[in-house]
């Protein structure tokens, strides 16, 4: 049986269940890389361009981990998921970046998903099937089955990072953890922030918890149309919880060098200040010392809790 490698990075955290089911349905073995660790990160930093952001560097490391173990690498070129919207430029150019940065790679399946040009997943998967020598009927049947896997995406993502006995507690403070899915659900990049927050008696919420319809609706309050699909979720989710006062605080996990985050942190922080909700931006990069992040988290949570007793004296902002 031929093996298909899917590196654990970037849009892996959005689509892996579909991809896995699809490829297994057409008779291939799917191998994904190990969870991110220091070695994978170091190798990624070594191979990628210096200016790239941390998640991009890390996916280079994952590809390096996989390249000798598989026959094909699946790195789709996802241009846009909704009409007239786009993904981040680095996601669009990811396959090309990897191909030109690493040597001795197996064949890369870099099909184009582009909803602007009516190249939806059906067409893309058809193309994959053609390259792999699978009949169209088989592939479309497998895709139909795989599509159902999206329902369990969120549970699957959460099971990776939340402790087993975690449950929502009404007497705990609620906190929205913002950021891209590939940062929130990779506990190496975010230095186990989720675990740390739960240890400190906090209910952690993710932008993925808010339904797509609500998020898209609430992302329309900006003066200019938001053209990043992943940005719409972040902005929409934050707008929704801020405007309805659903949470006691917001932490934004941004990665250094992320172009989307540079815009969103500004927008979210302004909105949060307007509605009086505490907001903190944690910028993550290659350094792995955790002390600084611990201190900032503790200070932020203390401030959040003190607002109960003396709300008027403590700044709600940062």
């Amino acid at each position, binding site marked *: 049986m031929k093996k298909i490698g899917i590196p654990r990075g970037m849009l892996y955290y959005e689509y892996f269940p579909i991809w896995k089911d699809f490829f297994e349905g057409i008779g291939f073995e799917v191998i994904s890389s190990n969870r991110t660790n220091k070695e994978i990160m170091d190798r990624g930093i070594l191979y990628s361009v210096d*200016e790239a952001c941390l998640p991009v560097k890390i996916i280079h490391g994952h590809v390096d981990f996989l390249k000798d173990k598989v026959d094909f690498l699946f790195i789709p*070129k996802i241009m846009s998921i909704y009409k007239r919207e786009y993904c981040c430029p680095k996601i*669009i150019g990811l396959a*090309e*970046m990897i191909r030109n940065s690493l040597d001795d790679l197996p064949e890369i399946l870099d099909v184009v998903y582009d909803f602007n040009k009516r190249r939806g997943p059906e067409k893309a998967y058809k193309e994959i099937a053609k390259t792999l020598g699978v009949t169209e009927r088989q592939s479309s049947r497998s895709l139909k089955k795989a599509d159902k896997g999206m329902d369990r995406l969120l549970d699957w993502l959460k099971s990776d990072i939340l402790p087993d006995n975690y449950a929502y507690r009404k007497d705990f403070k609620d906190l929205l953890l913002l950021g891209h899915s590939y940062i929130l659900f990779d506990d190496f990049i975010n230095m186990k922030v989720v675990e740390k927050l739960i240890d400190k008696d906090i209910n952690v919420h993710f932008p993925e918890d808010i339904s797509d319809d609500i998020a898209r609706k609430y992302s329309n309050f900006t003066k200019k149309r938001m*053209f990043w699909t992943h940005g719409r979720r972040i902005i929409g989710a934050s707008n929704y919880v801020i405007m309805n006062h659903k949470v006691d605080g917001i932490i934004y996990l941004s990665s250094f060098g992320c*172009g989307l*985050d540079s815009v969103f942190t500004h927008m979210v922080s302004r909105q949060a200040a307007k509605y009086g909700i505490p907001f903190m931006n944690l910028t993550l990069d290659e350094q792995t010392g955790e002390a600084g992040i611990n201190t900032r988290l503790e200070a932020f949570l203390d401030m959040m809790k003190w607002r109960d007793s003396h709300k008027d004296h403590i700044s709600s902002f940062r």
Partner: protein
Amino acid sequence: MMCLPFKMFIGNYIESIERGADTIVITGSCGPCRFGLYSLVQEDILKDLGYDVDLIVIDALREGYREFGSNLRKITKARSLLGLFKSSRLALELIKRADNLTDISNYIRAHAIDKTQVNMIMDNFYKASLEIHGARQLMDLIDKTEKELHKVELIKNYDPIRIGIIGEIYTIIEPFVNLEIEKKLGQLGVLVDKSLTPTKWLEHHVMSYPLGSKSERTKYKLAKPYLSTMVGGHGRETIGSAIYYKNMGYDGAIQILPLNCMPEIVAKSILKNVSSDYDFPIMTLVVDEMTGEAGYITRLEAFVDLVSKRREKQTIG
């Protein structure tokens, strides 16, 4: 964490507001580059600083026809379509002339015996251009400067090293941001060509809308084996231009990358392979807020030395 052009924009806004501007016009975009959302953040920043200005964003036609028209009318003051056409033709003419002047000065600087003479003429031009008003006067000034430039004495039978400047459009055309790379290379006797100029941009995006100009489409075609789709900004053009310059017989290319620019980062990682596949020297200069020039000059000199040694080897054997 914003990219360099964003910061420069703010500085430019403030400077022009203090000189009396009350309206700011920028083009918009809805591509994947963050440039499309500049206006959102910049408006907030200007408001926080206490400036009361009108920020007009001209978006692509498909973002709304009515808005496009009203914005254009607001800027140009033209009442009818004919007036709009007339005033935009004048503006276009001006942009073309100004770009042409830069090209001439680059050519003459590379060939001139006394290169400071060219620098002085151009400095005088920039200084004088701030004090005049209206399109006519500016045209006259350009005519005058061109005449002066042609008087400069040139080295005879000189075949200069030719280097193409590639990268993100704003960093290429704004001399302060790219540390006056054209001037610096010209001083070293290098003939410089920029892959993007305002004229080329207008030809591609406005005059031949929606097809795009021929030269840009050639670049897309050249870039295709390396980058099959657009990545926003000028990532694809950067790759295409590098190959284009190689085919045109240039000696090397320099990519200018504003720190943090997403499309250019994609391009940079690909250029490495373009360079080795085509046997074509390409250097990347990352520019940011730092304005110390010594490091850049050293790198430019080293690159030019390298390229000229290469050429000697190829021609002499």
